[in-house]
């Protein structure tokens, strides 16, 4: 081969290589998200409650849920779970933003830190994590827990670098493997958090933004105004008059996504120790039938919620279509059940309330009055409702059920004899416990769903949990965001995906 021929061949190969080299658009534009929760900590292992969107640009989790709700590996490559052990093969070639490598040692240290800190309740059944290879770890559980994979899609599964975990200021100096890094210099404490593309992120094509800004705006009116004036592109909303206004304002729209919370009453004294009528399931069913959920939603929750007769809402894997409308409003049936139970003249009980639940309880009391039940509302200190509901101070209570949590908590919250909200220590129906155990023995959601459907059906029969409405996850978004296909939302949570998100501004 002559030199000139060689040159041509090399030139052709080089040209081919250049042509096949992926060409990525440079990160551009700024995405501004309005958060309702104030940022408390950027240490994912100490994080509780709302505001996970502050963590998502920086941290990746071992697993995540895709937009359809299926669990997919992120920093994990694959996993095997059975009994009290779970082994996870980890992705290789991943780097933290401080330049250190992600490996089994770091992953195990992260999980052990979550367990030791004891803040993340979803990991309370985890015992320890061990390194079993350069990129493999084993998590040992105290008892079988199929929800462990789901737990690792949230803050408990967020991986922090080894140096980060040793940094006492980790809560304001996060170090993850995510597409963006937190810029403390450009952020304003308590007001706006700024994130810039990470140099060490392995998939540059997923870093579509030049800048992510998350603004802390707890006030609903202020968040609405910021959305209307274009100061933010997307905002999370709770059920409020302001959320209802979003839908009526030009240029912005309200998105209703599956998930959110289900407001419900719980009859605690279901053996009738304090309120004998509560021992009769017909009375509890009558209470269920007496509530006009459609009217309740319109009058109290601005029409933003949907009637509920089970813990999980439509669109989630745990929603049982067969239970939909199980306790549709039927006053005549309610009255007849009360008569059958011998309580046609009604009875009286007291329920605790906090200010944000007051209007809901007043509406429910009105419905109960129709079947001669007098529900007295006693206001307790804000922040003490859960604690007071764990005592025998009240025969019934009212709470919200987070649609994002595993159904195993239905047992530990309400059903089991030692359940958090079973202060009267009532022994559950063995059939319910058997179903609960069966649900815990399986790891696949498709297998677990029918088991829990059966459990919910049984609970509906016992009727001590009176589900009223589910308020979906509400986002207010500009028209541009609504029409932007790269903006997608993590199912059951109040955070969008920042990976792959692009804007044109």
């Amino acid at each position, binding site marked *: 081969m002559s030199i000139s021929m060689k040159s041509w061949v090399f030139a052709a190969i080089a040209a081919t290589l250049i042509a096949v080299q992926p060409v990525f658009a440079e990160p551009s534009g700024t995405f501004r998200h309005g958060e309702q929760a104030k940022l408390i900590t950027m240490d994912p292992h100490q994080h*509780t409650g709302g505001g996970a969107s502050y963590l998502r640009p920086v941290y990746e989790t071992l697993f995540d849920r895709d937009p359809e709700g299926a669990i997919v590996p992120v920093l994990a490559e694959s996993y095997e779970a059975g009994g009290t052990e779970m082994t996870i093969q980890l992705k290789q070639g991943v780097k933290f933003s401080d330049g250190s490598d992600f490996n089994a040692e770091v992953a195990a240290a992260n999980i052990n830190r979550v367990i030791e800190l004891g803040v993340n*309740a979803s990991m309370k059944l985890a015992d320890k994590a061990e390194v079993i290879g350069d990129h493999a770890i084993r998590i040992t559980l105290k008892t079988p827990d199929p929800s462990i994979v789901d737990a690792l899609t949230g803050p408990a599964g967020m991986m922090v670098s080894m140096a980060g975990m040793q940094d006492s200021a980790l809560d304001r100096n996060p170090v993850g493997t995510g597409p963006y890094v937190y810029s403390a210099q450009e952020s304003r404490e*308590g007001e706006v958090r700024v994130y810039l593309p990470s140099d060490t992120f392995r998939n540059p094509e997923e870093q579509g933004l030049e800048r992510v800004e998350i603004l802390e705006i707890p006030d609903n009116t202020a968040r609405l*105004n*910021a959305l*209307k004036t274009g*100061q933010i592109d997307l905002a999370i909303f709770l059920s409020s008059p302001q959320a209802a206004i979003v839908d009526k304002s030009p240029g912005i729209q309200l998105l209703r996504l599956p998930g959110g919370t289900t407001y419900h009453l719980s009859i605690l004294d279901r053996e009738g120790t304090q309120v004998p009528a509560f021992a009769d399931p017909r009375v509890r069913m009558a209470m269920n039938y007496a509530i006009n959920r459609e009217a309740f939603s319109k009058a109290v929750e601005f029409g933003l919620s949907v009637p509920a007769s089970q813990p999980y809402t439509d669109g989630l894997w745990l929603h049982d279509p067969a239970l939909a409308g199980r306790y549709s409003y039927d006053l005549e049936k309610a009255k007849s059940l009360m008569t059958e139970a011998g309580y046609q003249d009604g009875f009286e009980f007291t329920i605790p309330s906090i200010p944000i639940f007051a209007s809901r309880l007043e509406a429910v009391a009105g419905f109960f009055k129709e079947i001669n039940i007098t529900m007295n509302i006693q206001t307790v200190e804000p922040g003490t409702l859960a604690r007071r509901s764990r005592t025998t101070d009240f025969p019934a209570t009212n709470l919200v059920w987070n649609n994002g949590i595993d159904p195993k908590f239905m047992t530990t919250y309400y059903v089991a004899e030692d359940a958090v909200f079973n202060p009267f220590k009532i022994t559950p129906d063995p059939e319910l416990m058997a179903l609960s155990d069966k649900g815990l023995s399986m790891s696949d959601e498709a297998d677990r769903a029918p088991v829990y459907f059966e459990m919910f059906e049984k609970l509906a029969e016992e009727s001590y949990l009176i589900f009223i409405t589910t308020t979906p996850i509400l986002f207010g978004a500009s028209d541009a965001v609504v029409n932007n296909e790269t903006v997608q939302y993590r199912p059951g949570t109040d955070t969008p995906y920042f990976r792959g998100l692009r804007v044109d501004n």
Partner: protein
Amino acid sequence: MLRLIGQRLLAMVPLLLIVSVMTFSFTALLPSDPVDLIIGDRGSEEQYEMVRERLGLNQPFLTRYADWLLRAMTGDLGTSFFNSVQVKDAVLQRMPATLSLTFGSVLISITVGLAAGVAAGLRPGSWVDRTATFGATIGQAIPNFWFGIILASVFAVSLRWFPATGYVPLTDSPMEWLRSITLPALALGLSTSAAIARQVRSAMVGVLQQDYIRAARAQGLSSRRVVLKHALKNALVPVVTVLSFQITVLLGGALIVEQVFAINGIGSLAITAVRQQDIPMIQGIVLILVLVVMLVQLATDILYGLINPKARPT
């Protein structure tokens, strides 16, 4: 004067001590528990005890107070229960926003209140007086957060003249700083300017009937000079008293107005701390705000002396 300042500064020490005991006691009496908020409803008893111990909440009340006091005496107000943020740093970081808002509203209050009060006081019973009195009554009746919402709807959302939310530090951009505090300062200053206007009006009416005013007029001094040099100076003494009270009210009002305009000041910090039962943060905020109020009172006393030598303490 220096002796007075020294005495007043010394008197602040026991007062701050009393405030710290009261704040510590009140937070200890709260029925809710910060550990519940940290671990949530799903936390186990084991997790509860672990977190409680980590926060030192398992210690007796007096031990906790003594620890806190010893550290506070060295300028360390502790760390938030929920993150590694130092209480002192958090409060000082947010102070500029709240002070900007408070002093912006004081400026508006004085300007509007004085102008309206003097105009009304010069011609009692006239249409100017009736209009100013009516305006002052309305101004005092309207809650400042509601006025804030109206201002934001009109001037930020509809006209887009000012930002609807947020605060820009003075050091970042003086112009944007001014734009960011204009609406909240107006919202906050409305009721105070109304209070000042009423006070100035009645003081002016009283002063203008005094013999020395008549004497000044008899000497042939211009009406402007009589009002500005003789009447207003004396009418200002009660106004300073009102203003010193109103600054405390303004600081309280700022907590609410900050929410409406999403300004990250002491107000939003206080509300978050109270919601979370972040005890060290609550104590720090209360202590520093009390200190600010005491300093304002001291400044008022000094101002009395400057305006009216007769009121100067001996």
